[in-house]
């Protein structure tokens, strides 16, 4: 359960990125956050990741009040979230396998856990055959799949994706979206930021729209993804 209540965020520059935002997301939901560039979408995700602090308001994730969370608990909290970015953010000098394993290594998982869960995750995103390759040897869509595998490897309760298809062509974008939907069907709450009207219309579901830092609509749209 994610509860965002009366959130305001003003950057030190005086930029009002978010104004009085109220959103509730239930466990297992799939939510799109729409809006033009600069409307505050990334800022909202940053607040959820506790990368930035709101100027006022309250965020509660799975009964944890982020504003009251002690600093040393933040790493543990972040392990319960998975995050994916537009630019993939893979480690260029490491193989697909290592990129995914990395997320487990840095939280101190055992070698055995890593050996077992990485191939399983790569299979899920459809990259079993390419585990030895370096990121630059993969297409954009494949790189994003690696990033998704990395985000999911520690079994987070929530997956946050900031314009995950922004660098991909339409076909690849739809495939990534379908993968995210699949992940959501496995029980993970998924929040996807995008500014592509086309994708949202095709996929359907709950769509929250931001405009210049304000929430202007929160509605359920019917998708027609199976028609393509």
């Amino acid at each position, binding site marked *: 359960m994610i509860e965002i209540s009366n959130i305001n965020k003003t950057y030190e520059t005086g930029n009002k990125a978010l104004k009085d935002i109220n959103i509730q997301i239930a466990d297992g939901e799939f939510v799109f956050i729409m809006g033009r560039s600069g409307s505050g979408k990334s800022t909202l995700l940053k607040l959820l990741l506790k990368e930035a602090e709101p100027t006022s308001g309250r965020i509660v994730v799975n009964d944890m009040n982020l504003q009251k969370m002690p600093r040393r608990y933040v790493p543990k909290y972040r392990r319960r979230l998975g995050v994916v970015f537009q630019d993939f953010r893979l480690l260029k000098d490491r193989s697909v396998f290592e990129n995914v394993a990395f997320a487990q290594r*840095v*939280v101190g998982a055992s070698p055995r856990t890593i050996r077992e869960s990485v191939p399983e995750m790569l299979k899920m995103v459809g990259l079993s055959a390419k585990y030895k390759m370096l990121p630059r040897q993969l297409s954009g869509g494949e790189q994003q799949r690696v990033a998704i595998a990395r985000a999911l490897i520690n079994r987070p309760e929530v997956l946050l994706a900031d314009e995950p298809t922004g660098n991909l062509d339409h076909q690849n974008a739809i495939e990534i979206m379908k993968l995210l939907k699949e992940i959501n069907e496995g029980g993970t709450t998924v929040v996807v930021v995008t500014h592509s009207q086309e994708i949202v219309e095709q996929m359907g579901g709950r769509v929250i729209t931001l405009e210049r830092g304000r929430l202007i609509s929160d509605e359920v749209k019917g998708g027609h993804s199976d028609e393509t």
Partner: protein
Amino acid sequence: MRLSTFWYCLKQGVKNICRNIWFSLASAATISACIFLFCLFFSIIGNIQYMVQHVESTVGITVLFDETLPEEQILALGEQIGQRTEIKSMNYVSAQEAWDTFKTEYFAGHEELAEGFADDNPLAGSASYEIYLHDIEQQEGLVAYLEGLEGVRQVNYSNTTAAGFSSFNKMISLLSLVIIGVLLAVAVFLINNTISVAAAFRKQESQIMRLIGATNFMIRSPFIVEGVLIGLMGAVIPLIGMYFLYTRTVVYLMERFHILSNMLYFIPIEEIYPLMVGVALILGIGIGFFGSFFTIRKYLKV
């Protein structure tokens, strides 16, 4: 922490060093120079002190008394002198003992020649005290005191090199402190630079780690490992060098100046080396650890 996590951190630290090998080597070399000089001065100062102590224990002050002074009064004066705190030990040499020593030294093998003096000690009135001090630097003050005493005829002392050694030692300590201090500053500066470069290189990785939920400890560990390894390198190299230098130098000096062999006493390597190893390791690892720790705190605010 898991063993595998430890190995992972170690590997990342080594990777940091390899990626930036010249900076790392420069840092290690500076630390090496710093520790080498430390060991060098440490050996010099330590050995001089060792020799001075030796000289102090063999060279003392001899106090001679007025020839007419009866033995009881000499002993009473001895009691009084013995109150002085700077005295480590003193012993009384009676006229008879002085003569006996003299006989064995000068008439060695021809004791019969000395028989003529048998009943008439030629050294009568030469009863004396031999005094040894804690610290050779207090010699001057004590001599002045002794010369001022009623009944003291003469005070013999060697204005030895020992006192000179002591002040030389002080000067060299000061000089070494200054040089080591400067080198230490250079070493910290270089470590700082090396770690900053590594931090810039790993910026994205560190950021990803942060978002994945790695602890600060985990994010910083490659840099700390890097610093500590550089420090360790900087300690081991001069220690190996010092071992050979020390043993060779001692042998060389002993051969070259064998005339002075009764004055040249060196601390045996097995006594001085463990101390050097301990201090050098603490110094090297300390510089590496704190240098990287404070740099990384500045660069990777989490």
